[in-house]
């Protein structure tokens, strides 16, 4: 796949003394669904606005499909931007909102055909005569999407595309958005602060913090093998344990147990990540504690989440989170609060973090 469809090269941007982006480099492929994930103030929206042409970078270039677009005005760029607020025109109805960007270059008949097609694609044909204020949030989102897609952009930028929707609608729209993107094969770059949204939508995603890209990879890779402590904590639930080399094995003072790793570590002292669903939880009667990769502790808190139960287990100085899948509808499989349990995990589930 052409990895150089969208090239972001050495982009830096400051607002006054505030450095918002520092030397950002990214390569995005054609037809890729790419996510920029970060908390507020990470610079993700500024980066997206630079791509849209609403901000000029202090340094660096943006190259789209072989063309340097860094200094082009928004109206000259072959891409479109979907705003978080949708920014639909309140003085126009749905039809005219959809037709807004093609009125210039098309005849009345072509406009009509194009609007009908895009409305059909997004199943909003019945809304064409409505005014914007008469639409629900989900309908507005479709109109905003349609208004961009009707222009057949090379690249679609989406700022928090699902943030304004309620939770149930969000997961439905998530699925529709990925299906649509795969069907149209348009390159999507979107910004979100919601890690679940980033994971479910992205082919690849970049984690941003303080104007830097910490990691850029597939959601699976970022979840399973995060490089940094920040990413490990930011994506999903993380148990971070500090360990150091002691004899043949590694030892944690906080837990008072030995860890056996299946590969050597660069440093003698390091943080490891143990995801809560990788830990197996068993009744203390079933098993004896082994000398490594297991511990016994007391259940401090428990919350039943339907498909999973989340336990907070206290052991020595630490509280470890464990997600236990509810295989059986028999409630006896749930451990009560205060019960002593044994937790075990595989050596390969332990991931060492670089920093």
């Amino acid at each position: 796949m052409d990895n150089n469809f969208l090239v972001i090269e050495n982009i830096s941007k400051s607002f006054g003394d505030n450095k918002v982006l520092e030397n950002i480099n990214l390569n995005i492929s054609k037809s890729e669904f790419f996510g920029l994930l970060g908390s507020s103030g990470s610079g993700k929206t500024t980066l997206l606005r630079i791509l849209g042409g609403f901000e000029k970078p202090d340094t660096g270039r943006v190259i789209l499909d072989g063309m340097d677009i860094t200094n082009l005005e928004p109206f000259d760029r072959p891409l479109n931007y979907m705003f978080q607020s949708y920014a639909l025109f309140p003085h126009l109805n749905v039809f005219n909102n959809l037709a807004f960007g093609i009125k210039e270059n098309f005849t009345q008949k072509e406009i009509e055909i194009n609007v009908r097609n895009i409305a059909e694609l997004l199943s909003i044909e019945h809304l064409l005569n409505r005014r914007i204020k008469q639409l629900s949030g989900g309908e507005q989102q479709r109109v905003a999407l349609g208004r961009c897609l009707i222009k057949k952009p090379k690249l679609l930028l989406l700022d928090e595309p699902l943030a304004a929707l309620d939770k149930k609608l969000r997961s439905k729209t998530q699925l529709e958005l990925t299906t649509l993107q795969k069907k149209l094969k348009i390159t999507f770059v979107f910004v979100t602060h919601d890690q679940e949204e980033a994971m479910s939508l992205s082919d690849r995603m970049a984690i941003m913090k303080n104007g830097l890209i910490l990691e850029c990879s597939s959601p699976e890779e970022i979840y399973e093998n995060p490089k940094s402590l920040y990413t490990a904590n930011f994506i999903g639930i993380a148990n971070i344990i500090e360990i150091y080399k002691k004899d043949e094995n590694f030892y944690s003072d906080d837990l008072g147990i030995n860890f056996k790793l299946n590969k050597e570590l660069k440093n003698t002292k390091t943080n490891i990540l143990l995801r809560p669903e990788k830990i197996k939880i068993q009744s203390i009667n079933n098993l004896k504690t082994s000398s490594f990769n297991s511990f016994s502790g007391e259940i401090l808190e428990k919350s039943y989440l339907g498909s999973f139960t989340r336990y907070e287990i206290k052991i020595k100085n630490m509280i470890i989170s464990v997600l236990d899948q509810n295989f059986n509808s028999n409630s006896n499989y749930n451990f009560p609060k205060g019960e002593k349990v044994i937790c075990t995990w595989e050596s390969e589930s332990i991931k060492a973090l670089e920093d």
Partner: protein
Amino acid sequence: MKNKLFEKYFVFSPYFWLVLFFFIPLAIIFKISISVSEWGMPPYQDIFLFDNGFKINTTFENYVYIFSDYYYIGSFVNSLILALISTFFCLLIGFPLAFYIATSNIRLRNILLVLVVIPFWSSFLLRVYAWKIILQNNGILNVILLNLGIISEPLQLLYNQYAVIMGIVYTYLPLMILPLYGYLNKFDLNLIEASKDLGLNRIKTFFKVILPLSVPGIVAGSLLVFIPVVGEFIIPEMLGGSDRLYYGKILWEEFFVNRNWPGASALAFSGIIILVLPIVIFQIIYSRWSQKNEI
């Protein structure tokens, strides 16, 4: 219960105000306008006579008089044209200013708003008088132009309709800027970005997005300038010449020079009706339109 009574009074207080300071004076003016004029004090006869039994003593002669003489109608037309031109220039200057203020950052915005309002802190008469000093034959502007060698003899800048228009635009500009700012302040700037993103350049974005969405502010500001300018008396009196007569000036002369109170009242009353009726009709049509368009 006391509170209820207070609330009632409070809700109706604008109406009390309207009745006391608008409808009663208007009724008095109407009464005088249909009175028969005479030499004396006051210079008109009562409309109800009781000496030989009850008799109503009214006339529409005054209306016939002012409408049959183009002197009066012409002055009103002049004032309407003056108000139209002044409103247009206020809009032309006020809109970009209001837009700039509304879109600048909060600190600059407050400074600019104060600058817009500052002229109100000094006397209106003084400010108009200052223009006389600037524009007169040996005034600052002429002296500068002479010294720069752009002109060889002083220009007649004062005492013509252009000086009047300039003075009115200068004086009424804040009344245009403030309501416009009020609307533009709420303007979602993403709409402008969205329009550009969809391929419309700055000029097209202005006409397709910014202008249609600013209509309420434009209407509010224009009415605020247009209506008082029609009756404006002081600025044409101080900066204007004899090239054009305006409604306010004629009204003043009719009252205080000719002492024709009934005629002047008829002129004032007709002016209000001619001005208010179209505006009321316009407001009704406009509010229906804006409801339909949800602006």
